[in-house]
């Protein structure tokens, strides 16, 4: 069992007023932004510079998450604190010039493909003041097969990734070169890894330097006071947000699709309790299966973070995301649980996507069950062939190629305030990832993207509908390509909330030369020959609220714009349209009153 409660912050430092706190929070935000900018612009692999799958944050010396920046949420909520504390466990007195490589899912990291660098910020008297952390998903991490999401790994040995449980890679600002040589012998495309490693390290060092400069300007006493007061501010905002919620408890359940090693899929559940009187929310994930012989197991970091995302997606989004607000969410996890604390050597290779998305989704759906106009439906999930790693030989040059394409995201969830976000991708990314340009992808590898457009009638219907999935069809331009992915949601679709309907399931198919469509494997690899095409339909997001309460004008607009058909408007939303496509009030009233009286 664990919780996200951190040790109490030091009670030292100057007390700051709300004006001084605001100014210094801007300075810390600027430091994190500068770290992120360095990482994004100097990174070489597509996963860094295109998808922007990385994060940067500043932690207190005790390991509390103080300031985070724009990043996929799965990276930065419930993990960096565990990592910083594991650093203190192995190196109780970190020194200026140290840098530690950390990618161990058994010591607080998300999954092995996320390489983190931790740098302690140490003052002139040798006192450890803060820790900065930069974390980036690598294009390769030394797995036994060329993918960083290895669903079929029965354990960490079969997964094969090099694991670094807080390993010093710089001492007195100089490289520990033997560690880097080991990596270069094991990680594919070592020069690309080396470039990305430098980008991550550079980002952490830039954060360190900026904090030292800020301390020169305002003094460590003020910065300590800021850290304490900023976390207290986060906690006060969270307290106020929770006190405004209704009290209640709800248990929600879902099931991950069958995968290698788990032929029946993985059933999971969450019990969420909102306690306004105490200003606390509790998420209990303990009543779930043991770890499984598959890469699906969550790390402790991704279990906690997924639960936190579900909670924070359900409340006032302006509450700061730091250890202060996290103190008001108690996440209960169990040892050796598939969505808890993994027991070595079970593999956590896909810990940031598949089950993490399922956990966050059922938590926000439970929030929707506890109160009206809160929570969220389920966000589309799964890495379909539209997000595959494609490889082959480019006949234009004779050179082999391997690259992850990112051409068709899943649909977002309907919520109390708005329809789902179309390019949401999944819960863990929060929609932050960018979408590939068709022209760029066709230039980079010998493929043709024949179609990419939204798939009508695949949205989870609701008062606020989920976003539909996309339909994408691509194939080789001469030659053969192989595609590896790790889909979910083609059997168990994304549920709606508060009377909203599920989104349409995702699908993966091959179009043969004669045009016939044939289903293909849920994970691949799939070989696609010249003249054949791979067809992916991504998950639609769940709807929020009963479809028959959706504004008829919004339904008419969806028909006019081709998001849904007129038949679906009539049968699911119970809206009658006139010949010009405008809502027919009398006809709609008849359809809707018949439904209500049913």
């Amino acid at each position, binding site marked *: 069992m664990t919780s996200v409660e951190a040790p109490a912050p030091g009670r030292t430092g100057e007390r700051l007023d709300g004006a001084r706190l605001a100014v210094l929070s801007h300075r810390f935000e600027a430091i994190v932004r500068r770290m992120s900018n360095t990482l994004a612009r100097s990174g070489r692999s597509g996963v860094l510079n295109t998808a922007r799958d990385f994060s940067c944050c500043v932690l207190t010396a005790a390991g509390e998450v103080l300031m985070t920046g724009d990043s996929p949420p799965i990276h930065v909520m419930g993990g960096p604190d565990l990592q910083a504390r594991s650093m203190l466990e192995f190196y109780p007195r970190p020194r200026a010039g140290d840098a530690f490589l950390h990618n161990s899912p058994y010591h607080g990291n998300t999954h092995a493909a996320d390489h983190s660098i931790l740098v302690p910020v140490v003052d002139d008297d040798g006192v450890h003041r803060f820790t900065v952390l930069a974390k980036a998903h690598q294009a390769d991490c030394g797995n036994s097969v060329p993918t960083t999401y290895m669903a079929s790994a029965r354990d960490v040995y079969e997964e094969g990734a090099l694991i670094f449980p807080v390993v010093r890679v710089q001492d007195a600002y100089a490289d520990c070169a033997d560690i880097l040589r080991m990596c270069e012998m094991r990680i594919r495309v070592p020069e690309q890894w080396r470039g990305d490693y430098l980008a991550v390290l550079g980002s952490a060092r830039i954060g360190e330097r900026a904090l030292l400069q800020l301390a020169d300007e305002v003094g460590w006493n003020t910065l300590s006071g800021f850290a304490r007061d900023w976390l207290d501010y986060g906690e006060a905002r969270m307290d106020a947000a929770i006190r405004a919620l209704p009290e209640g408890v709800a248990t929600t359940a879902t099931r991950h699709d069958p995968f290698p090693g788990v032929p029946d899929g993985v059933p999971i559940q969450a019990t969420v309790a909102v306690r306004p009187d105490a200003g606390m929310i509790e998420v209990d994930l303990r009543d779930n299966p043991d770890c499984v012989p598959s890469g699906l197991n969550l790390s402790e970091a991704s279990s906690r973070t997924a639960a936190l995302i579900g909670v924070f997606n359900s409340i006032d989004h302006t509450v700061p995301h730091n250890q202060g607000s996290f103190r008001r969410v108690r996440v209960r996890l169990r040892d050796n649980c598939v969505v808890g604390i993994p027991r070595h050597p079970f593999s956590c290779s896909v810990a940031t996507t598949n089950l993490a998305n399922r956990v966050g989704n059922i938590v926000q759906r439970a929030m929707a069950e506890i109160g009206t106009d809160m929570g969220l439906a389920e966000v589309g999930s799964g890495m379909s062939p539209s997000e595959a790693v494609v490889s082959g030989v480019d006949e234009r040059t004779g050179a082999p190629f391997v690259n992850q394409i990112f051409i068709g995201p899943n649909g977002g969830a309907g*919520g109390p305030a708005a329809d789902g976000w179309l390019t949401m991708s999944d819960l863990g990314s929060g929609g932050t990832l960018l*979408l590939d340009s068709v*022209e760029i992808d066709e230039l980079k590898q010998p493929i043709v993207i024949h179609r990419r457009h939204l798939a009508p009638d695949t949205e989870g219907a609701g008062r606020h509908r989920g976003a539909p999935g996309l339909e994408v*069809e691509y194939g080789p331009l001469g030659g053969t390509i192989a595609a590896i992915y790790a889909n979910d949601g083609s059997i168990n679709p994304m549920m709606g909330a508060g009377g909203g309907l599920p989104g349409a399931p995702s699908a993966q198919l091959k179009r043969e030369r004669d045009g016939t469509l044939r289903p293909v494997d849920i994970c691949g690899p799939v070989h696609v020959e010249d003249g054949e095409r791979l067809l992916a339909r991504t998950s639609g997001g769940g709807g929020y609220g009963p479809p028959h309460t959706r504004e008829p004008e919004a339904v008419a607009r969806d028909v006019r714009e081709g998001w849904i058909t007129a038949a679906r408007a009539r049968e699911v939303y119970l809206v009658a349209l006139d010949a010009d496509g405008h809502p027919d009030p009398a006809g709609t009233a008849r359809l809707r009153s018949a439904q209500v009286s049913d």
Partner: protein
Amino acid sequence: MASEASLRVSVDIGGTFTDLVVEREARLRLFKSPTVPDDPVLGILNVLGMAAAADGVPLEAFLGRVGSFAHATTRGLNAVLTGATARTALLTTAGHPDVLLLREGGRRDPFDFTTPFPEPYVPRSLTFEVDERVSATGAVLRPLDLAALERTCGLLIEAEVEAVAVCLLWATVNPAHEQAVGEVLTRRLPGVPHTLSHALNPSLREYRRASSTAIDASLKPLMSAYFDGLTARLRAAGLTGRVLMVTSAGGVADVADAIAMPILTINSGPSMAPVAGRAYAFTDLGADEVIVADAGGTTYDVTLVRKGEIPSTRSAWVGAEGTGHMTGLASIDVKSVGAGGGSIAWVDSGGLLHVGPRSAGSVPGPACYGRGGTAATVTDAALVLGYLDPDSFSNGSMTLDPAAALAAVTRDVGGPLGLDPVGAARAILELTTEQMVRAIEEITLQQGIDPGRAVLVGGGGAAGLNAVAVAARLGSRSLVVPAVGAALAAAGALMSDLTAVYSATVPAVTSAFDTGKVNRALAGLLARCREFVARMPGSGASITLYAEARYPQQIWELEVPLRVRAFEPGDVEEFETDFHAMHRQILGIADEASPVEVVSWDARVRVALPGSGATLTTRLADPRRPSMRRAFVAGHGMTDVPVRPLATIAPGERVPGPVLVESPFTTVVIADTTSTAELGPSGSLIINGGDAA
């Protein structure tokens, strides 16, 4: 007659004021008149009338002396932002109707589920698929179905569209299908303007190209009418000189070119500030690394000069980044934040102070305007601190209500934070300064400029309130506040040249460089530039070639100037060296073992206008005398501070801080005892050596 074509004028229409700058014999004068939203040309004629009156001549006589009239307008921008453009259809390659809907993905705030997914620039119901397909190499994978296109034209006519945008995949490599579509549209929809993507913006990435194409087409009916009306009314009023339009790229274009490509003018508002900033920083201090901050009532626009050049971007957005619409064309790189005199200060439920993002604007305005606004704003805080003259605001056109400002600041900020009114007002200005610094740090970081080594140029009506504090916070060398700072953009238009940008998508890599192919592309660009020069009367034409280049696997290109007009053996290595140096400057590292990829080649042509290269100086007439006012000074509290009208400062005089320097449209606050101010050669105020307030 000496009067013949002796004047050059420039007009910048802002949200509140229409600014006019008049140049005669390298001296500038500045006039401001309220913008007339329903009839912007009337606002122009009004401010021209003011200038004519100042010269004591009728408007017709005044206009008769004007050799050139340069104009920056936000009309196209406002039309896009408010959806007041033409009913526009989009034609795309079959299978890809959602290019404008999907944009490039991304989401700014992952926890915000209150913001709906943004609308596409052209609705799906007005998007039509064209059955055709070209590959990345330009090969035709599927021929154009002309019969289906004829049927689509029938649908366009039925839908009563007023403009058509055409953007087909890979039209930049093989434009044959787009050209054929254009011919059919001309025949079937005569009188309905269209834009072809390869002709407007031959660049890679279909979203950006489609977006620029759609915006351009949608502006054609409106902007043609506006430009025609403007020209006709100016001619009727007596203008005989040339009419020029300011472009987003920081140059001016002949009005005929602006009518053909109206998107060229869409970001013309902020594009001239760096042109003026560059001129003043160079004239007054010999500096070529400059940060130009233009502070208006609602926004704070930051632009840069790097080694004398103004950096541009192809990622400019109309509306919010990510949810607005990308213009896709080279545009001056501007970072805008909602921080201005009207920004509202408030304290949240956790006791944290915020400034903005809401703004009181000019209506209802700050509490001290007495126009119905009650919320505490940055202007109110400045009044509480004694930085503004309540009896003579904005050249005496307004009086301010200090009691209302005090009440608002006390109620909204002082009370909740437990601060006295002066402490609360200081906190508001300090946080505003921090937000301005954030904007500056963001763009300087992106463009690889060290703010500590650059000169800060402060312009705009609200510049003077924070500029000294911003410069101190950045550690800038010096701060320059031009005498025409309140109309920096309009002044810039008098210092700019006729420009055009052409580009060719001809990918190349330095490890396998196809010299023949690249040189053919460069020759084509040079020919287009020479054709532009031939059309433009002017002197001293210059053409610069650039590569949009990157390391393999990177996705964002850097713009690298070429040293040659055609590549010879040895030139490729020199180009690689230039790229590595630029990469190191902007991103801190270089990979010298790596080859360099070029995505496209650009040519920028510039034809100097008569007078644009001259040093433009300004001495403002101001009847006010030096005086004293109670104002806040760091370390001293509220105290008596000298007030010096700019016109009373003599060349060579060093004015020690604290001092408030007033010019007709702005007040420069020097609220510390370590800074000094003096006049520069152009008449600008130069401030050196302050501490952070």
